[in-house]
């Protein structure tokens, strides 16, 4: 009887065994981290250990990872340990991370988190702090409460949560005492906690490095990333897992992230699916060979108006614009309006739009938000200056700015707005 129970247990064991963690990049083409300084960092790392050693070390680390305990700090520590076993002088963790990204061991989002963890751990602090530059919150009760919260940090951190989650939780707890608290208050509170010997120098430095690197501003972690990707892949299995896109690793205007990093950091898996669905409908409409408008009287259809191809195209664009606005009203978005490129990246993420179509469909944005050429930008200035010059320049030379104004009116005034054209519906 005992043997049969053991036998059953042994049979069932593999079913309960956790799936191995796999970070392999399955969507991104050339990395967002592809600058010459990134390449130099890789070269420095490869001087200390060779390519196969970095990949081998990471494979070992990856095999030992558990899905519920994923942590960029722990992963970096394990990787560093392995690489230091190969070369005790190894110091180029960032280069190793970037190299692993080039080999598609993981994507840019994972690379970013690992590099941020590395930066947090290696940032040089200017110590001791100048007391005159430290500003504690004015309310002493707030200070006491915050210092007590900071004192408990180590206890909470040792419970198995990742450092970034623990730090953000601590920051949130401290903020509960005074929501108007700023980062410089937190800086002073950390010093206060250390001076009161509530935390030791190591914990102080770790927390201060996290503060300096503004770890509290993001809520994205390795664990949540892995969970999100897994959820998306389960619900939308990729038709072509080998497909890669350089478009999604392109830089977002005015931000230091790629389109895909922005998407994954900023939206939940459900939001991504809803966004992708908008593009799915757009694609169907763009590809549709026929669209009709049916007119009914009170009982029957009395008229069918068939849209011509360009009307169908403009209808698809108008419906897209409408649905982009409506998505903000969805409870899952809480008023947040994703931009068109977010939708495109979401559609690619779940495989609705293949990489080959991505750039062209994304380019539809030019229709409602056309890029301005140099001449169009210059026209604004020429028009302004010419208007002044028409009065300032005396005859007979006054015709020059007048002519410039007329030419600008002729060229800039052309808009393909079909709304006033009675021969088209859209």
């Amino acid at each position: 009887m005992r043997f049969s129970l053991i036998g059953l247990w042994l049979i069932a064991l593999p079913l309960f065994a956790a799936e191995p963690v796999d970070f392999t990049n399955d969507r991104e083409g050339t990395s967002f981290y592809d600058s010459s300084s990134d390449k130099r960092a890789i070269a420095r790392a490869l001087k200390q250990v060779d390519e196969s050693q970095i990949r081998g070390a990471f494979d070992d680390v990856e095999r030992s990872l558990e899905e519920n305990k994923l942590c960029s700090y722990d992963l970096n520590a394990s990787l560093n340990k392995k690489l230091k076993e190969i070369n005790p002088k190894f110091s180029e963790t960032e280069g190793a991370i970037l190299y692993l990204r080039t080999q598609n061991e993981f994507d840019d989002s994972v690379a970013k988190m690992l590099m941020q963890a590395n930066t947090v751990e290696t940032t040089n602090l200017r110590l001791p702090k100048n007391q005159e530059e430290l500003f504690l919150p004015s309310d002493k009760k707030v200070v006491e409460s915050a210092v007590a919260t900071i004192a408990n940090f180590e206890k909470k951190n040792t419970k198995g949560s990742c450092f970034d989650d623990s730090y953000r939780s601590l920051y949130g707890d401290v903020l509960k005492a005074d929501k108007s608290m700023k980062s410089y208050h937190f800086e002073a509170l950390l010093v206060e906690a250390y001076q009161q010997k509530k935390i030791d120098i190591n914990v102080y430095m770790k927390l201060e490095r996290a503060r300096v690197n503004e770890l509290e501003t993001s809520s994205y972690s390795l664990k949540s990333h892995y969970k999100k990707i897994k959820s998306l892949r389960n619900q939308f299995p990729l038709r072509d897992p080998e497909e890669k896109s350089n478009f999604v690793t392109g830089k977002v205007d005015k931000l230091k992230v790629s389109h895909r990093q922005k998407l994954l950091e900023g939206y939940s898996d459900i939001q991504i699916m809803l966004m992708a669905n908008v593009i799915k409908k757009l694609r169907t409409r763009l590809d549709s060979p026929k669209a009709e408008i049916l007119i009914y009287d009170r009982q029957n259809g009395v008229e069918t108006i068939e849209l011509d191809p360009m009307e169908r195209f403009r209808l698809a664009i108008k419906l897209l614009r409408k649905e982009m606005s409506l998505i903000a009203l969805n409870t899952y978005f809480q008023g947040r309006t994703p931009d068109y490129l977010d939708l495109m990246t979401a559609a690619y993420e779940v495989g609705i739009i293949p990489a080959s179509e991505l750039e062209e469909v994304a380019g539809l944005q030019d229709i409602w938000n056309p890029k301005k050429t140099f001449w169009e930008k210059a026209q604004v200035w020429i028009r302004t200056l010419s208007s002044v010059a028409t009065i300032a320049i005396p005859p007979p030379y006054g015709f020059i700015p007048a002519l410039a104004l007329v030419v600008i009116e002729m060229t800039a005034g052309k808009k393909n707005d079909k709304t006033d054209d009675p021969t088209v519906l859209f």
Partner: protein
Amino acid sequence: MKTLLLVTLLVPTLTFAQVTERTFEAMTRTENNKPLVGDVVLTDLVSNDSFDGEHFKIVNGKSDEAIKFDADEALKFRAATAYFHLTKARNYFIEKIKSDYVAKLPKMVIRIEHSNQFSELGHFTHDKYDPQFNNALTIPAGEGLASKGVKPWGIEIWFRPAKRVNIKELKVNGLANQEFQVLMAGFREQIHMQSMQRFLSNTVMAMTSDGPGMNPLSTENLIRTVGSSIVMELGYQFMDPITKFFSRKWYWLDTAVVPEIIYHEYSHVALSDHLVLSHSTAIIEGMADYFAGQMADSPKLAMNIKKYNTYNGKNAKRKQDYKIQFEMGEYANTDFVFGLLWEMGKIVGEDKGEAFMFELRKKLTTNSNIRNQLVEGILETCEEECTTPFVDKIRILKALNLKGI
């Protein structure tokens, strides 16, 4: 019996033996598409003394006889030019476009110096009816009228004689002229507004300034301020007579010596399996222009003959927004469809453009319009022919949207 067999064998052999090549002077183009008179070799001739070939017979006017090699030099030059470029066009459609229809076309009669109008029943109208000049025309085949002695005829190309015509007698669509008039109207408005602003600002300055300033009502100031407006107004009101005085007054077009026109007309023939030669529309003219442009290897079709003609000069690269008028009437012959097809050809790939357009003809009829059937036809053809149909269709739709369709 043996003799009979020998003769039977010899007759076709002799016929083939007559297919000859001969060198003539004709109008060609340089690499830069400039006109060049030079020697060309005419192939597939089946006659030793006339422009009668296996595929084309060049006749003078209403005649049924091929033009003789010893005809007068000017006629011979036109015949040789037409024959040479028609052969080139035929080879293009057979060898490059792989058109079975063109390969199977029967021998065509090409009429040069032919001024009679076309009649669906009688082939030609009577000489007394308004003779035609400075033009070229492709006519559909006809069954003839046996009761009146009119024999059946095949598809023919007619090149009209060149004739100096006073520009006043021509109906010109004048799109460029319209644009110039809009520019002048805007300029005039701006100058008047400028004069008004100057007068008001001088008046305000004089009223608000304590020191001695310019009197806005002084003669000097009035002359300076109003002077520009008067000069502008005079120029504007007399613009038309002045333009007419300085512009050229005579127009003529010798179509039989313009390679692009020859290609254009032959393209009508090659496309006539689907685009029936009944009347001229924007689409069939644009399609013929496209292939003529490809054969001439130039988007500037007819720009080379601009100095002879009065219409805009067909230029595929001319940016032009869609106007509903392009669908019909005299605007139908403007270069909008040509430019549009040229752009579409670039989108689907330069190596595929010609095959694409040739397939496109299957989706069109002579009565197709631009906004509906042409655009639909382009999208459907792309679905069948493009390497990446969805992406290419998006590119096409974006380009068409920019064209204002």
